[in-house]
Structures are given as C-alpha cells and as structure tokens.
C-alpha cells in the first residue's frame, strides 16, 4: 500500500503501476464538469488556489452546514470520469496535477498526458459515498460555489487514508484498456 500526500513528486507518481492500491492522506480538490470545461477553455483558478502536485477528485459531494454553520460532507463518492476526457489532458498539463481520482477510467489522451507530465489516474469505488466521506476529516475551503452550485464547486478537502487503485499509470499502462480488450475477445467467443 502506497500513501500519497500532496504535493506529490514526479518520481513518486512514476513509481506507481496499474493495479497498485493507494491511500491518500492530505488535501484533495473536487472538480467535475463545470470546472473542467471552465479551466480547459482558459478560465483562471481563484486567487490563492494552486493545484500543482495535487490531486483532482471527480466528485460532486453532498455538503450540508451543521448547527455551528460549518460545512460537513455527508456523501462523497467519485463521478464518471470519461465526461472530462475532452478537457483532462490540458488541465493535467497546465495546472500540474499529479493525480486524478474518479471512476470508470479515461481515454487515450488522458493516458498520454499522464505519461508526458507525470500523473496517474486513481480509481475510487463508485457509489461508495459513505465510506469515502468518512475519510474526509475537514472541509478547508470552497470555490465557485455561487457560479457552479454545490456539486460542481471546487471543494478543498482534508482526507485521511482515502482508498483508491491505480488503473492508469504514468508508464502508459491502463487497466481499462486491458479489461476492455480481454472482455471483447471473451465475448467474441461466446456469440
């Protein structure tokens, strides 16, 4: 089990390979459709926000305010990543991401960007909103809440032992490509 604590170095991410279980302890930033489109079309990050070496989590959490007026994440599983395929490569390059957490995997362009810029795709268990929310120890900040609404905002989360599996590494490996090819061949035999 590898523990990742952002900011992550190029060497540390390149040491990971497909199938490795990892745990993230430290800061995660959520970002999904609206954020990806905005950033890839040239939008700027809010002042003071730096994603370099960091991990972007494809997630639209359920967040409520507790009695004391503090944000509390009550559910926070990954959302489907392929929707960000048109934007992800550019964002990895431009903002210096070392990790992307999501579900379902991503395509060739993202895989190439992972290899070129030292980034890995970490697959969380889709739907496991409660187990993953338990790993969130604090909400540090929120950006774009007004503009994009709660699920689409960038939430800055402090996490502890957040579990994921490397399914696309920085060496060109992709579990998604392998499983697709193998299952396609298996299906062809059964038709």
């Amino acid at each position, binding site marked *: 089990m590898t523990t990742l604590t952002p900011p992550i170095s190029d060497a540390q991410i390149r040491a990971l390979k497909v*199938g490795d*279980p990892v745990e993230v302890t430290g800061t995660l930033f959520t970002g999904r459709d*609206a954020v990806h489109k905005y950033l890839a079309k040239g939008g700027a990050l809010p002042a003071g926000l730096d994603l370099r070496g960091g991990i972007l989590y494809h*997630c*639209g*959490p*359920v967040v*409520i305010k507790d009695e004391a007026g503090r944000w509390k994440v*009550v*559910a*926070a*599983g990954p*959302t*489907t990543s*392929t929707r960000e395929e048109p934007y992800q490569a550019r964002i990895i390059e431009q903002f210096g991401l070392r990790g992307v957490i999501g*579900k*379902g*995997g991503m395509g060739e362009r993202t895989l190439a960007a992972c290899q070129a810029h030292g980034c890995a795709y970490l*697959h969380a*268990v*889709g*739907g*496991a*909103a*409660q*187990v993953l*929310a*338990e790993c969130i120890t604090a909400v540090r900040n929120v950006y774009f809440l007004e503009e994009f*609404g*709660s*699920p*689409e905002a960038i939430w800055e989360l402090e996490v502890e032992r957040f*579990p994921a*599996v490397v*399914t696309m590494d920085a060496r060109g490996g992709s*579990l*998604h490509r392998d*499983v*697709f090819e*193998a*299952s*396609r061949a*298996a*299906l062809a035999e*059964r*038709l």
Partner: protein
Amino acid sequence: MTGLQASLLELIRRTSAEIPDDVQRTILVALEREKAGTIAASAMELIQRNIELARKKSQPICQDTGSVLFYVDCPVGFDQIAFAETAREAVRQATRKGYLRQNSVDALTGKNYGTNIGPGAPTFHFHAHPGADVHVRLMLKGGGCENVGAQYSLPDEALGADRDLAGCRKAILDAVLQAQGKGCGPGVLGVCIGGDRATGYEFSKQQLLRTLDDRNPVPELDALEQDILNTANDLGIGPMGFGGKTTLLGVKIGTANRVPASYFVSISYMCWAYRRLGVTLDAQGHLQDWLY
C-alpha cells in the same frame, strides 16, 4: 405536515439510505465469489461496508441521489394532482435534510435551484388499479449508470444482430461490453424488447421494479435473462471494471408490442447502488406496509 407527506419523506429517506433486501443478498453472494486479495474483492468489500454504513448513519448510499422516479398504483378517482404536489414538497424537504443531493439543474443554463424540483423533476408514473390502496414505488436512478444505457434498432449490421432472440442477445451483451465498469458495476439490466423509442426505455426501467430473485414467467425470456447474466459474468469485466467474476447482479427482460417496421432493444443499466423501495398507503396517506 400531512400524513402523506410524512410517509413520502420516510420513503425517500429509506430509499436513499437502504439497499433493498433482494439486492443486499445478491451483493453478498457476489462478494463471496470474488477471489480474496484481488482488487475486485476489495471493491466488493468496500461496497458492502458502504451499504452498512449508509444504513447505520441514515445517509445517502451514493452521493448521486439520482433522478427521482415515482411509480404510483392508485384507485380510480385518486387525486393525482394533490399527490404530486405533496410529493414535490416531500422532495424539497428531503433535499434540505440531505437525504437527496441538490441534484437537479436547469437543462439549458445548468442552474441549480437546490430543491430538486423543476420540469420533469421529480417524475411521476401513475397507473390506476382496481384496489382501494395506494402503492408508491420510488426509484433513485443515478446518472453514471443512466449514461451507459443503450437502445439498439435491429437489424444491426455492425453487431450482426437480426430481428430475433439471438439478435437481442447480441445487442444486450454489446451494451454490457460498452458499459464496462462505468455504470458502477456490478449492475442490473432492465431490458425492453419492442415498443417505440420512448416506451422502450420506459418499460426497460419498469423491469427494474422487479425483485432480483423473481423469475420471468415467459420461458424464452427467462432463459435469455439467465444466459445474459452468466455470459456477462464470464467476460471478466468485474466490479467497477477492475476484472473479476461479477459483472452483473441480475437481468430483467420484458416486451412491449411494436409496429412491424420497428424492432428496438432498450437497455437501462442500474448500478449496484440500486435504490428502489416502496410503500402501501391508506386513503389518508398513512404508511401501511413496505414493499420489497
């Protein structure tokens, strides 16, 4: 708050937080089947832990609390307008309480009003039935799995799928292949053979109201359901598409008459976070019993 609103609020809370028994049993079987130490097995373990935690904390199983779909069987003369109004109020309240995420946005502007209320949200399917009581079934259908649904128009030359059961089989298995783990598998397929483009999808979703352990009364469809289930689980796609033995938890297939010119196979994919419960209500809207 009226009795009806309280009942519907409780229905929403439980549907969001608790997996139905038939689904839970099937997930436990799948967990047993995956080989210990694989990433497929750890995914299933995490899924099971998540199910238990959600129930214990009375929190959403998944943060995508989905499209809110009500299926209501009601007596003739039932006031559907009043029911829908009360149900919308219950949805609004459930959203404030965090049973539902602020999950419904304007189709064009993307604006989220934070209430889950708007055109088509929630959705109601009313059916009149001869009895005096009211059955309300609720399905929370997540977006990730909805996106991997598919509709085929047979014959499909690329798949070599003709207008027969063998062709249907090819189309359905192609949908499984294309979905991989993207719909948060292991999933359940609701399938409709026939209908038009709209009713095909609608009926395919209604198949998901069946329990996982029921058997199709039509022998050909029953055989096809078992065949698709076994074949899909032989493909090695596995939980989350990580590879493994459980690609699907169930397959439910129904038919609807079609015009001779059309032959659609419509497939709705339901993720493992299969949120579907139901209640029986008396005339005042008080909760009598739980379905499922």
